[in-house]
Each structure stands twice: as structure tokens, then as C-alpha cells.
């Protein structure tokens, strides 16, 4: 029997220091033609432009046809650093149904992750589609296919999905220095899928479970400068850390149920992780943790609620600047820009 040694186990949170902070609520000026609904994704590019992928408008199933077809329900918009609206990207895109996340890579490409079309869409900085991962289902199953149903044509352990780029309610995307792509997949599957920078499938790791290397819901993913992969698993209340080949390295617990995570760039990287409350309960949880990459908690801030400096169902954190964060909430329909104070 294989014995696991050198498993680092961090038990952090209790008594973590509060980090003082200020917030600007909704710093982004939406044009009259676009309203901010649930702020599922928020991310900045190297110029400081802010991108929001929001659930808005009318998610629609069309009827009177042989099968029910899904349309609309989410939009991707760009603002400059002052909050001025610049443009909409992917207007009426085939893949925009239920916004889940937006991330910006090192070349300022814009990646949208859609939970319902189960697609990850890469736009170049001009806003043209450059690479697609996954494929939207041709039609919808009504009522919806249960979460634990096997992926179409899937084989292997429960929740592992196919060894391919067919996702089931994916949640997040990240890249290593070589440009290889890591997809958190997601709510329906419980795996991380890796592709090369051209979108060719390499491998996928994980299946549903609570053991090491298994996941319940894969809610977020982030990489550090060494290429370590941090996988937020809210269902199992931990962040697992893997190397780029999917080998388990360590895990972080004691920070609630990690949903949104972010790793800041630069020589001294830090990790943010949100213990997001579900939208149906604002009376507990909701705080965000700041950790060093070894998993030690530096501090925490915020709580669940509807006021400024409170959070409801944080789904996205942008930490391109370590102490100037953008936070997207789905329980409140808003983006907050946070300034953290202290050391």
C-alpha cells in the first residue's frame, strides 16, 4: 500500500486578522442599453481595462420547434480604468448563456467561461473569437439533465467526464507560463482539464469524491509563477495544489468553502480565496481570505450582506494589483472595487 508522505496540511483561519479596506460600489458606468445583472466574472487587462461577464437580459428557450433551443442571457462588456464604458464583446454570441467567469491572459486575450453552453471562448484583444473549447449542446434537455448524470458518451469514474474538451458546467480558466490552458470543469464534472496553447487536449485529472485528487465542485483555478495549479473546491471546503502534470502537492483548508480564487502577479505572490455565501443566505460566511502561497492566512475581510463592503455570493476576484481588487457578486448585482489597507 502506497504511503503518502510529506503531505502539507494547513489549518488556517480561526482568529485571522481583519484587513481594513474601502469599497467603491459599481465603479463601472454601464450604458443605458446594457444593465448589470449578476456579476459572475470581472477581470482586468494589462492596461487596467475592466471586463465584466454578467448574467443579464432574458435567458430564452424557444418553443414551437422540434427541440427546445437556448438563447441569450449573458453579456461581456469592457470599461476603462476610470469606469467609462468602452465596448461590448461577443454581442449575441452563440456561446453566451449563463456567464460564469472572465479572465485575461498574459497577452491580454479575453477568455469567457459559460456554465450553460459549457464553452470557453477566447477573444483576442480586438474582441474576435480566436479559440473555442467545448461545444454548446445543440438543444436543451427540459427539465435539465441532472448534475450527476454521465457526460454524453462519457466513460470513467463518476464526474470525471470524457478525456476531451466536452465540459459540463465549467467554471474557470487559467494558464501556465508556456500558455498551456487549465479548465476548471466544474459543477457537472469534477475535474481539471489541460490543453496546450493551441487547444489540443493533453489530459484531465480528477473525479467526483472527497479524496486527495478528487473534487466535489471545482469552482475556481489559478496558477502561480512556478506553474503550480490551485484548485478551489467549495464542496470539499479546500484548495488543492498540484503541479502542472496534475500531481498532488498540498492542500489548504480552514478558509471556508473556496469559490472564487485569484493569485496576484509579481515577485511576491499572494492568494485570495472567497468563502462565498450562497445567495439564499446572507447571515453567515461571505468573507475573503488573503494567504501566502504556502497557505498561511495573512488576513481576512468582509462578510455576507447587501451593504457596501459586504458581499453576497462572490463569484470572481481580480487581483492584478495586490491591494486593489475587483470583486463580482451574483447575490448582489454589482461589482465592488476594493482598496486594502495595512501591511
Amino acid at each position, binding site marked *: 500500500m502506497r504511503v503518502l508522505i510529506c503531505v502539507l496540511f494547513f489549518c488556517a483561519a480561526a482568529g485571522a486578522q481583519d484587513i481594513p479596506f474601502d469599497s467603491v460600489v*459599481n465603479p463601472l458606468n454601464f450604458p*443605458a*442599453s*446594457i*444593465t*448589470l*445583472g*449578476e456579476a459572475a466574472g470581472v477581470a482586468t487587462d494589462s492596461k487596467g481595462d475592466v471586463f465584466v461577464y*454578467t*448574467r*443579464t*437580459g*432574458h*435567458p430564452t*428557450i424557444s418553443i414551437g420547434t422540434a427541440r427546445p433551443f*437556448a438563447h441569450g*442571457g449573458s453579456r461581456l462588456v469592457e470599461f476603462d480604468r476610470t469606469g467609462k464604458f468602452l465596448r461590448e464583446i461577443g454581442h449575441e454570441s452563440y456561446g453566451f*448563456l*449563463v456567464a460564469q467567469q472572465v479572465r485575461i491572459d498574459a497577452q491580454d486575450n479575453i477568455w469567457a467561461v459559460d*456554465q*450553460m453552453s459549457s464553452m470557453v471562448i477566447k477573444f483576442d484583444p480586438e474582441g474576435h473569437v480566436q479559440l473555442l473549447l467545448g461545444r454548446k449542446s445543440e438543444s*436543451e*434537455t*427540459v*427539465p*435539465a*439533465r441532472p448534475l450527476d448524470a454521465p457526460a454524453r458518451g462519457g466513460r470513467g469514474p463518476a464526474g470525471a467526464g470524457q478525456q476531451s474538451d466536452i465540459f459540463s*458546467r465549467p467554471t474557470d480558466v487559467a494558464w501556465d507560463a508556456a500558455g498551456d490552458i487549465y479548465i476548471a470543469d466544474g*459543477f457537472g464534472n469534477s475535474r481539471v482539464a489541460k490543453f496546450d496553447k493551441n487547444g489540443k487536449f493533453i489530459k484531465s485529472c480528477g473525479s467526483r469524491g472527497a479524496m486527495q485528487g478528487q473534487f466535489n465542485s471545482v469552482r475556481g483555478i489559478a496558477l502561480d509563477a512556478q506553474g503550480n495549479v490551485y484548485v478551489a473546491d467549495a464542496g470539499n471546503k479546500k484548495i488543492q495544489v498540484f503541479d502542472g502534470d496534475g500531481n498532488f502537492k498540498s492542500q489548504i483548508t480552514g478558509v471556508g468553502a473556496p469559490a472564487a480564487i485569484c493569485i496576484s502577479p509579481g515577485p511576491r505572490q499572494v492568494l485570495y480565496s472567497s468563502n462565498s455565501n450562497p*445567495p*439564499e*443566505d*446572507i*447571515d453567515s460566511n461571505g468573507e475573503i481570505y488573503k494567504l501566502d502561497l504556502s497557505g498561511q492566512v495573512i488576513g481576512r475581510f468582509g462578510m455576507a*450582506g*447587501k*451593504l457596501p463592503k459586504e458581499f453576497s455570493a462572490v463569484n470572481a476576484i481580480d487581483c492584478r494589483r495586490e491591494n486593489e481588487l475587483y470583486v463580482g457578486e451574483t*447575490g*448582489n*448585482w454589482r461589482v465592488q472595487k476594493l482598496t486594502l489597507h495595512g501591511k
Partner: protein
Amino acid sequence: MVLAMLCAGSAAAQKAKAQNVPEIPYDSVPNFIKLPANLYLGEAMGVATNSKGHFYVFTRSANTRLFEFDQTGTFVREIGEGNYGFEFAHSVRVDSEDNIWAVDEGTNMVIKFNPAGKVVMVLGHRPDAVAGMLATTVGPAPPAQKYLFGRPTDVAWDPQGNIFVSDGYVNNRVVKYDKNGRFLAQVGSEKAGTGQNELTLPHGIAVDAKGDVYVADRSNHRLQVFDNNLAFKASYDNIGDSWTVCVSPGPHQYLFTSNSNPNGNGPGTWDNTGEIYKMELDGKILGRFGHASKQPGGFQVVHMMDCRNPNEIFVAEIESWRVQKLLLKPPAAKLSAAK
């Protein structure tokens, strides 16, 4: 014969209505609302005025939409176009600071817009589309949750800004939140019931200056009054089915409730429904006005009223796709014939 029995059954379910109620004469302002070309009202679910005399209409058209009009009925603007919470309008109300609150029973959301039309708070949560359509529940509703609604119907506030939501078609309760949206209390539950502190389809809500809460307990054929902590105070059951309620502001407040004619206009229903009652807060009936009819001046399923001026009543009707402005006159000496 079968028909007669059905009618008898339906009449028996309703409590005896007040007799010899003075009839309040009124005029309906002709062609009141002026819509620009290519803009139409569908079912007029909600109407509410603000302090400047502008009014808002929440309507079910191809999409659910929220329109603002000025005092003259001229279209001003649309609010919340493309809003994620707009699928199936139910109510619009304006609070004391002229914030506009929309209640949508298709998304289970209560949405607060500031006077500029920006979303500043949301209550409830729209089920994620990715979870698919839920089958219509058969059997008992699941336990009501503090921050989720089941087809909510209406919203009101007390003078402190606490928020009261009637909820609704799936749950059968009224929920109280503080002004920041934190749960405080509820009366009723997911279960329908006919007793005190029980509700069956709470369909409208209003709060007076003392903070007492008036709930249109529609399918219980009554209006229930609760104190500010949602403890039972009184039940008014001589006014037919209370579809919607309104409490006027000012030193002498009045209570209005509509015994709206049922959707579908079944045989005989026009004979004993369609009227609106004007009452003292303690339940004393002062008069009644209106009747079921498809013509202007009559009502086709009044869904909501605005009574900021108790002599100028706005009514929104489901089945005539219109909003009327009614100018009430002093009551006639003549009493309406008992029906």
C-alpha cells in the same frame, strides 16, 4: 343544474359581503395614457405614483417592462430594459424616497431602483437558467427560506424603512426585512392555511404610518392586519376577495381593497365582484366604487391600485391591458342595492 350548483358552491366559499354600502361616484379620465408609436401595454400588473406625480406601470408585454409616465400620462422613459430580474411582472411600488421597487413573480426577485433608474438592491435570487426549468411542484411546497421567494406578489415599507414582501403563490407568508435587506420575521409559511396568522395566496400588501401591515389574503376571501412585528391584529372578511390593498398617506389614512372579478369572467362572476372598497384603517367601510366591465370606467381584474391621493385612484387591470385614473366624487346619498 350543474351550473347552478357550481355557482352556489362558489358563493358559499366567499363570506357574506357588507350590505348597504354607499356608492362613490367617479369619472375615469378618458385616454389617459399616451404611449409613443410602437410601444404598447400588455397586462397592466402594477401602477404606482411618485412624489412628483409621475407614475410607473409594470406590464407583461412580449417582455416584462417598466415604464414611467408624467402627470399628464405622457410617456417619459423605460426603466430596467433588459433587466435580469424581469420575466413576469407582478407589482411596482414607490417608497417615500421615490425609489422604485419592482416585484417579478417569474424570476422570484424584488428589485429596488433608485429614482435615476439604477438597481441599488435586489432581494431574492433568480434560479440559474443552467439548472433548467423546474417542474411545477405537486404536493407540499418545500420549507420557505429567509432570502428566497416563491412567486412573490408585492412590497411595502414602514416609516423606518423596513421592507415587507408578500410571498406569494408558492409560499404563503409575509416576510419582514430591515432596510438593508436582512431577514427579521415572517408570518405564515410555505403552507396555505385559513386560521389567524395563516395566509392563502397573500397577493398584496400595504403598511400604514403606525407600521401596521395590511395583507390581501386573496384566496381566504379576506384582508388580514398585522402589527409591525407581524403579530395578528384583525381580519376584515366582508369585502369579498382582497386582491390588492392600498393605504393612502397623510394625517387621515384610508384603506382601499379590490374585490376584483376573477380572471376568465366565469358566468355570474360579474354580479358580485369587481368593486373597490374605501375603508377606515379599523375596517369601517366608507363606500365602494366600480364594477366588472370591459368598457372604460369599468374594471377587468384590477390587479393593483395607487392611492397617494385618496380621491385620485390609479388602477391597473390585467384583462383590459390598461391603466385608468379615477377621479372620485363625494359619496351619493343613495345606497347601492344589496346584491
